[in-house]
């Protein structure tokens, strides 16, 4: 369906036929620049891809902003498989600045790092007049990420004809704030807004025609799970009420229970509380923390098995006990019921020990026998059973599927890696074995560490084996079932030992990261053998192959390093059955599109969802939120007033006008009669690395020219005298702790008359250095304020600027520059440790002073004495220990110094060895 030849652009035959609505989106945007907001999962990437395909030719020069390396990889791959010759290239810091002009003039599509583009636009290294246009991906981020907006502004100032087309699929991002979408469009210099919600008539009617077969299975939770869920919701409610009571200013609507169980709730609440975080009491802070924990609990309840859940609950209790922090919810009745039921899902304390004893000992291994009190219940997950039944149904259908062309492939999707691993083990080994193993791992008490270590070692070995086996196995078309099974078991051993290695939640997550990294190398090696046998390929990190015929794969929905991993799997495997163990909006939509793009191929989707659970609620909330966001956008679009000059193609757009009057002309009213003064273009020299921040763009906007160079000393040079080191709060803390700021201050004070430390606050956070109540009774040298004090004591000439936002900083910079001379980039760049120092800073040669200070026995106090008495270092080494102690006035220091100088390398080495 769909006329592919529209606008004279015939789609290559390899590519899947474009869908009706996609054609329309494409044509609209092709004819007039604008911002496309499309429903999540509806294929914004496919639309961008069509534009990329269009411009992949040397005659045009198109820049793509805001793509991640993984996305770029995916787009290039897709284009390559479509047979595009002039593939997009990447402009990163690997291409030296001299070569970049050449790259730009070669044309085609370029994915460029924003920082580099900013610099190239500023230095005119990029031929702005030759640019055909700019494509902005993830356009909703244009407000927060300043660089892209800066690029677009520079582009529009220098090029009035090129196009700007922007794409995003995040409608919810436009839901917050005042006139968000309008501000975004203003930053993008576009006049048109194209909205493509899922309920758009064209989309809806089209997808209706190609509906996949959907089977919704509402699994019911066990009574224990239900009780736990009710208890947690109760507690959540109490916490929310408390939170509101303590902070009456919070908007009530956003603090509903429904929102509280959703994922973005954390962000919402931080958004409200961050600006006043330093004024909040300890109570509110701990409530926020509790809400987070409770949400995790809810998620664990439906996501994982009973053992994992109990483990989390128990560890919560343990930490509360250990740290004595408690906001009170642990004492609620509901929480008691939660604990009781969480335990009841795993074990019960048996009443009649003797009668059960034999039964128990049969079931358990030796360690467990000692623990007679506990009788294991190990409740299985209801969803697991449902999954098993679905798989059975698929199997039976596959048996008589000759008319469909053989058995269909199966794709099982679960939310994260951990669930996938569990499901895989469940399918292979069964619920009991899985739960038993988890139980032993988590609650088995004896020498766990040692055992784990051995297992780890084994796993690593077996992994090696499995890897070396792979080659021959791949060549043999036939793999024996047992060995296959074996291999899976081994591999899984690796996965799960690593996962369960530590019991604390955070640690597990870290481990998962490590695991992914570890196995991604494996994936690459496998990728190479792809054409020969692709069934085996799939048994790599992200996807878990289970059965070979029919191919059954488990894949996580989130947390893959490659955001398109699932898409690739979907298109490679072409499953006939998809089982959604967890529902995720984006993927559901993606399935719809997938089905529509392959008409005629049967696709059945099984939805597994706990009826009446928070899981279901979460899914529905996401759906509703997006719908509401679109409705709001539609209303805003209807009432939006867009100025004619928005696109900035002529000289009338005020956003493009740099505020140059104030900067260049020194309108000094106090000068009698407004005497003619030479107007000088104001300049600030900015270090290359500073282009990650918003500040250069704001300075530029004030009409001050920016010279991007690599500075060894300072970040911004305002005048020949003023050198500024900019620190955000986190930078400030970090660099005060690791000594970097100290050395930066030393060099600034050496080479500039007015060294300045600029402390820049995040405007969305509180404007304060320390939070209320965090002050200790005593002076602590770890406090940031103490270190700042010490710094100012040691650098009397160092000035400090406190700026609440980058905007304020830019304003202050402009005022500081008034009536002062301009800095010279060549001089600023040349400043290194060998340059001439400012007379005020030191009367001694800084190089030798630094050198001396690093020698043991020399400190800030005796350094000057030493330098006054000894002419040079060569004189220093000739002095005897007695003479040294006479000069230093301290025998201990003198001995240290003497020993250090007269120690031979051999001695040092041998000493070092004995130490180790």
């Amino acid at each position: 369906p769909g006329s592919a030849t529209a606008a004279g652009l015939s789609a290559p035959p390899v590519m899947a036929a474009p869908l009706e609505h996609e054609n329309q989106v494409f044509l609209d945007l092709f004819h007039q620049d604008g911002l496309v907001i499309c429903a999540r999962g509806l294929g914004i990437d496919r639309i961008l891809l069509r534009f990329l395909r269009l411009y992949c030719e040397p005659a045009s020069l198109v820049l793509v902003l805001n793509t991640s390396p993984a996305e770029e990889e995916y787009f290039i791959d897709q284009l390559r498989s479509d047979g595009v010759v002039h593939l997009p290239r990447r402009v990163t810091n690997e291409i030296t600045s001299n070569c970049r002009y050449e790259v730009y003039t070669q044309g085609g599509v370029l994915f460029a790092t924003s920082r580099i583009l900013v610099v190239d636009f500023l230095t005119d290294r990029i031929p702005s007049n030759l640019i055909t246009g700019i494509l902005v991906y993830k356009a909703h981020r244009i407000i927060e990420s300043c660089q892209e907006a800066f690029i677009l502004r520079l582009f529009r100032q220098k090029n009035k004809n090129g196009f700007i087309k922007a794409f995003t699929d995040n409608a919810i991002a436009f839901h917050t704030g005042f006139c968000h979408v309008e501000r975004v469009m203003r930053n993008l210099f576009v006049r048109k807004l194209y909205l493509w919600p899922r309920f758009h008539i064209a989309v809806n009617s089209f997808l209706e025609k190609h509906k996949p077969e959907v089977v919704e299975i509402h699994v019911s939770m066990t009574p224990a799970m239900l009780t736990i869920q009710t208890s947690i919701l109760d507690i959540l409610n109490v916490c929310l009420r408390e939170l509101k009571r303590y902070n009456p200013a919070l908007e009530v609507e956003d603090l509903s229970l429904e929102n509280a169980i959703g994922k973005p709730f954390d962000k919402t609440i931080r958004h409200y509380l961050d600006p006043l975080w330093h004024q909040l009491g300890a109570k509110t802070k701990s409530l926020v923390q509790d809400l987070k924990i409770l949400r995790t609990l809810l998620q664990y309840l439906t996501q994982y098995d009973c053992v994992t859940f109990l483990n989390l609950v128990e560890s919560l209790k343990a930490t509360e006990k250990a740290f004595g922090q408690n906001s009170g919810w642990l004492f609620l009745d509901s929480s008691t019921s939660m604990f009781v039921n969480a335990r009841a899902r795993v074990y019960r304390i048996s009443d009649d020990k003797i009668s059960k004893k034999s039964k128990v000992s049969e079931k358990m291994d030796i360690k467990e026998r000692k623990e007679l009190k506990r009788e294991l219940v190990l409740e299985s997950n209801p969803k697991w059973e449902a999954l098993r039944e679905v798989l059975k149904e698929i199997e039976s259908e596959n048996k008589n599927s000759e008319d469909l062309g053989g058995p269909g492939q199966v794709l099982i999707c679960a939310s994260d890696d951990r669930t996938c691993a569990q499901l895989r083990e469940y399918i292979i080994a069964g619920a009991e074995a899985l739960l038993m193993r988890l139980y032993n791992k988590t609650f088995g008490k004896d020498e766990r560490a040692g055992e784990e270590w051995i297992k780890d070692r084994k796993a690593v070995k077996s992994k090696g084996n499995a890897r070396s086996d792979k080659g021959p196995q791949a060549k043999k078309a036939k793999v024996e079932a047992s060995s296959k099974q074996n291999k899976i078991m081994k591999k899984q051993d690796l996965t799960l030992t690593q996962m369960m290695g530590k019991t604390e939640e955070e640690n597990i997550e870290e481990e998962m990261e490590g695991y992914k990294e570890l196995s991604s190398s494996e994936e690459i090696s496998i990728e190479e053998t792809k054409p020969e046998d692709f069934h085996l390929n799939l048994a790599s990190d992200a996807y878990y192959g289970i059965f070979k015929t029919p191919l059954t794969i488990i894949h996580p929905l989130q947390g893959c390093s490659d955001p398109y991993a699932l898409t690739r799997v979907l298109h490679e495997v072409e499953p006939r059955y998809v089982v959604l163990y967890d529902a995720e909006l984006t993927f559901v939509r993606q399935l719809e599109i997938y089905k529509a793009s392959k008409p005629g191929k049967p696709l059945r989707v099984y939805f597994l969802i706990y009826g009446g659970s928070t899981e279901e609620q979460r899914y529905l909330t996401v759906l509703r939120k997006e719908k509401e966001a679109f409705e709001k956008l539609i209303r805003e679009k209807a009432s939006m007033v867009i100025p004619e000059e928005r696109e900035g193609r002529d000289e009338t757009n005020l956003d493009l006008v740099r505020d140059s009057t104030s900067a260049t002309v020194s309108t000094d009213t106090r000068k009698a009669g407004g005497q003619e003064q030479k107007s000088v273009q104001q300049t600030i020299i900015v270090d290359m690395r500073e282009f990650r921040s918003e500040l250069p763009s704001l300075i530029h906007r004030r009409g001050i020219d920016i010279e991007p160079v690599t500075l060894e000393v300072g970040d911004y040079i305002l005048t020949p005298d003023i050198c500024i080191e900019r620190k955000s709060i986190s930078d400030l803390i970090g660099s005060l702790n690791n000594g970097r700021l100290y050395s930066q201050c030393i060099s600034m004070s050496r080479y500039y008359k007015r060294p300045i430390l600029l402390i820049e606050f995040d405007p969305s956070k509180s404007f304060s250095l320390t939070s209320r109540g965090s002050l200790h009774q005593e002076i602590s040298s770890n406090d940031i304020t103490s270190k700042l004090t010490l710094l100012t004591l040691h650098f009397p000439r160092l000035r400090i600027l406190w700026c609440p936002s980058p905007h304020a900083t830019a304003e202050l910079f402009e005022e500081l520059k008034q009536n002062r001379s301009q800095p010279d980039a060549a001089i600023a760049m040349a400043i290194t440790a060998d340059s001439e120092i400012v007379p005020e800073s030191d009367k001694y040669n800084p190089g030798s002073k630094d050198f001396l200070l690093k020698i043991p026995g020399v400190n800030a106090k005796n350094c000057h004495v030493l330098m006054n008495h000894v002419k040079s270092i060569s004189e220093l080494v000739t002095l005897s220990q007695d003479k040294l102690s006479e000069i230093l006035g301290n025998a201990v220091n003198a001995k240290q110094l003497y020993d250090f100088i007269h120690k031979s390398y051999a001695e040092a080495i041998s000493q070092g060895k004995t130490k180790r």
Partner: protein
Amino acid sequence: MPVSWPARVTAASSGSREGAVLGELPPGSEASTVPPAASGDSDPCPTLKPGAKSNCIIVSARQRGNPILKFVRNIPWEFGEIVPDYVLGQSTCALFLSLRYHNLNPNYIHERLQLLGKTYAVQVLLVQVDVKDPHQALKELAKMCILADCTLILAWSPEEAGRYLETYKAYEQKPADLLKEKVDQDFLSIVTDCLTSVKSVNKTDALSLLSTFGVSHLLPIRVQTGPCHC
């Protein structure tokens, strides 16, 4: 022939540092200097009037009743006849300013700064941020501090302000070690660190130099061929 190391016997200490031009803020190019107001003595480390060398923070009588004094608890303090609000050491002093007060009496701090001149090496302007929208005032104060050679410190509560006063006094003699990069205390790390402080030497160079020469041989060699001409 090694050059001696006070490479610049400098006129810096006697150098005429810029005077404060406080009465009129924005104008005045950098060069326009007015001699410092009161003392005329521009030595950065002045010897103070008797009483300055005490273990206490000396508090001007003007500060009587300031709530931040309640929070100066770890360091003793006493009233004394001084020009600044607080004397925090031989060469350190502080002026205190509440933004709320500043908004009502914008000229007050000008006068105080002018009176103070440049008597102390470290002159802190301790500002308590106690108004809702401090930004405009802070910007003016920041510019003022640059012209008047003051260190601007912001505190958001009387506790914090008191803590700054305490810390300035307590850290009067403290070396900067706390701020420096931590170096492992074994010989090799120290030598490497030491040698790499010379611009053209990197870590590998340092090790190979060290294995060829001992420290005592190395140092004179470095000086003779030295990139730095010590």
